[in-house]
């Protein structure tokens, strides 16, 4: 039964226009990430080469090009931004449509008047959403690997592919948080439009508001790989640093930066991973409980 519901979920997404539009945007941005990374790298190296020529003309020695030592995967650093923005939005829509159709006009009544338990129903829905996100990210991984191949004119090494797979694995877990938020909001609101609005609100808070009271208070930290000594000496900053584990977007960016080697500050990767996984597990349990308690004898408004 779980497989039937998951398969139906996957099939029905083929014709959800909003979802398809966001998916296309994410895939285009994934392809562009490599090109943009390569373009900025090429500009910097070009400036360095010009400087070397200028110094040589003046008979001065030129320093070693620091950018040549940059890891290959750092070309994909933009993906660390695209996933929390476009990817998370896509996941919210995916989670929303997974349950909203069954709410609207009471299709859920037809489902639950059959031999379907609420547990197998909600697990089927979660498995369906997880499978779709996995397929999208496997495709994104392929696009990223191809763009590295084209930009560098050399195939990524096994180690690089491993890091890339780890990054997309982490992204899958991160996006599941938003898919589950999209599902849960359908179950706690009576109107479809309000459910989507609530999920978008949660996305805005997690992506933009929470970082403002954590890393947003130390705007130079993202540029400086060394932890700001002032921040650890002041009570206010010490207090806000305690809030950091609750900012899953920061945890995601920090671990991703470490995995893609765009940042030397890995922070507490295990702790970060656990906070993302913990939130996903918490939301999954909440969604299962909400479906058990939900009244499927009536339909909600479709407006």
């Amino acid at each position, binding site marked *: 039964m779980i497989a039937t*519901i998951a398969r139906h979920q996957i099939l029905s997404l083929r014709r959800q226009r909003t979802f398809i539009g966001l998916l296309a945007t994410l895939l285009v941005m994934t392809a562009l990430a490599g090109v943009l990374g390569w373009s900025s790298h090429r500009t910097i190296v070009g400036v360095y080469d010009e400087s070397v020529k200028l110094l040589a003309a003046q008979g001065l020695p030129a320093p070693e090009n620091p950018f040549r030592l940059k890891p290959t995967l750092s070309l994909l650093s933009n993906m660390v931004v695209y996933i929390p923005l476009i990817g998370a939005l896509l996941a919210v829509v995916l989670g929303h449509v997974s349950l909203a159709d069954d709410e*609207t*006009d009471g299709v859920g009544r037809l489902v639950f*008047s059959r*031999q379907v338990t609420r547990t197998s129903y909600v697990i089927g829905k979660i498995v369906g959403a997880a499978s779709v996100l996995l397929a999208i990210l496997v495709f994104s991984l392929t696009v990223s690997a191809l763009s590295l191949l084209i930009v560098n004119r050399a195939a990524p090494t096994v180690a690089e592919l491993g890091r890339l797979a780890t990054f997309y694995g982490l992204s899958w877990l991160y996006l599941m948080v938003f898919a589950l938020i999209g599902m849960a909001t359908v179950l706690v609101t009576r109107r479809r439009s309000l459910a989507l609005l609530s999920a978008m609100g949660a996305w805005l808070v997690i992506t933009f508001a929470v970082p403002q009271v954590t890393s947003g208070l130390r705007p130079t930290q993202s540029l400086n790989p060394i932890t700001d000594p002032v921040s650890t000496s002041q009570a206010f900053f010490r207090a806000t640093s305690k809030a950091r584990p609750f900012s899953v977007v920061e945890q995601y960016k920090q671990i991703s930066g470490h995995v893609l080697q765009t940042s030397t500050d890995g922070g507490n990767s295990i702790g970060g991973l656990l906070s993302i996984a913990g939130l996903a597990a918490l939301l999954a349990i909440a969604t299962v409980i909400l479906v058990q308690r939900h009244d499927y004898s009536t339909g909600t408004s479709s407006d």
Partner: protein
Amino acid sequence: MQTMDTDRFAAQRTTTAAIEMVGLNHTYDVEPVLRGVDLTIERGEIFGFLGHNGAGKTTAVNILTTLITPTSGTARVQGFDVVTQRHEVTSQIGYLPAEVRMYPHMTARENLEFFAKLSGVVDARSAALETLDYLECSDLADRRVGSFSTGMRQRVGIAQAIIHKPSVLFLDEPTSGLDPVGVRQLRDTILRLNSDLGMTVFMNTHLLSEVAKVCTTIGVLNHGELIYKDTIEATTARFPDETSLEDIYVRMEAIPS
């Protein structure tokens, strides 16, 4: 073990009424909607459940289709308890709610295949096509449900309700939004399902003219209480002065509960 269970279920199916409610009560918040309803519907009957808006008809159907749990009392469908034997009950019933729409971006066939699989039908594709053919609407198979008129949706809705050949069919206000041609088609379909497949039909409706033409038995619910239940023939015999079922119904509704 499974054979024994099957035998036990088969025995229950052949010895009990199609639908049985005993002292059924249901309360939303503090408002009682059903008040001690006792009702038995025999196999093969076409039962018309009448009552004003808010009388509790849909609540009764929601309980019988296992969508909600009654506050107290018992309800059985084909001998199975709707609370403790939910799985067995859902294997026996088909349900068409009022204003059904299904998945609008999927075709009629895709919708039917999904609901057939949920009911454990092995060859869901064949079942979907056969059911559409039975209801004489095969032309709708590959069209998206979102583009359907009310009448078309209703026919596909009936198809999803009977695709697994249930013993009992629940129809909640099936005529709402239908034009006269649609109402006539629905009436013919109900009579065919009853005669061809022996389905017991439980129908909530306001359309008294259809009740008189289709139903074998009627029940009247007034503010959550069952105030009347008898066959159509007995009803018209009991109220000889009234010219139509509508007059009888108005007279019953006027009786204080």
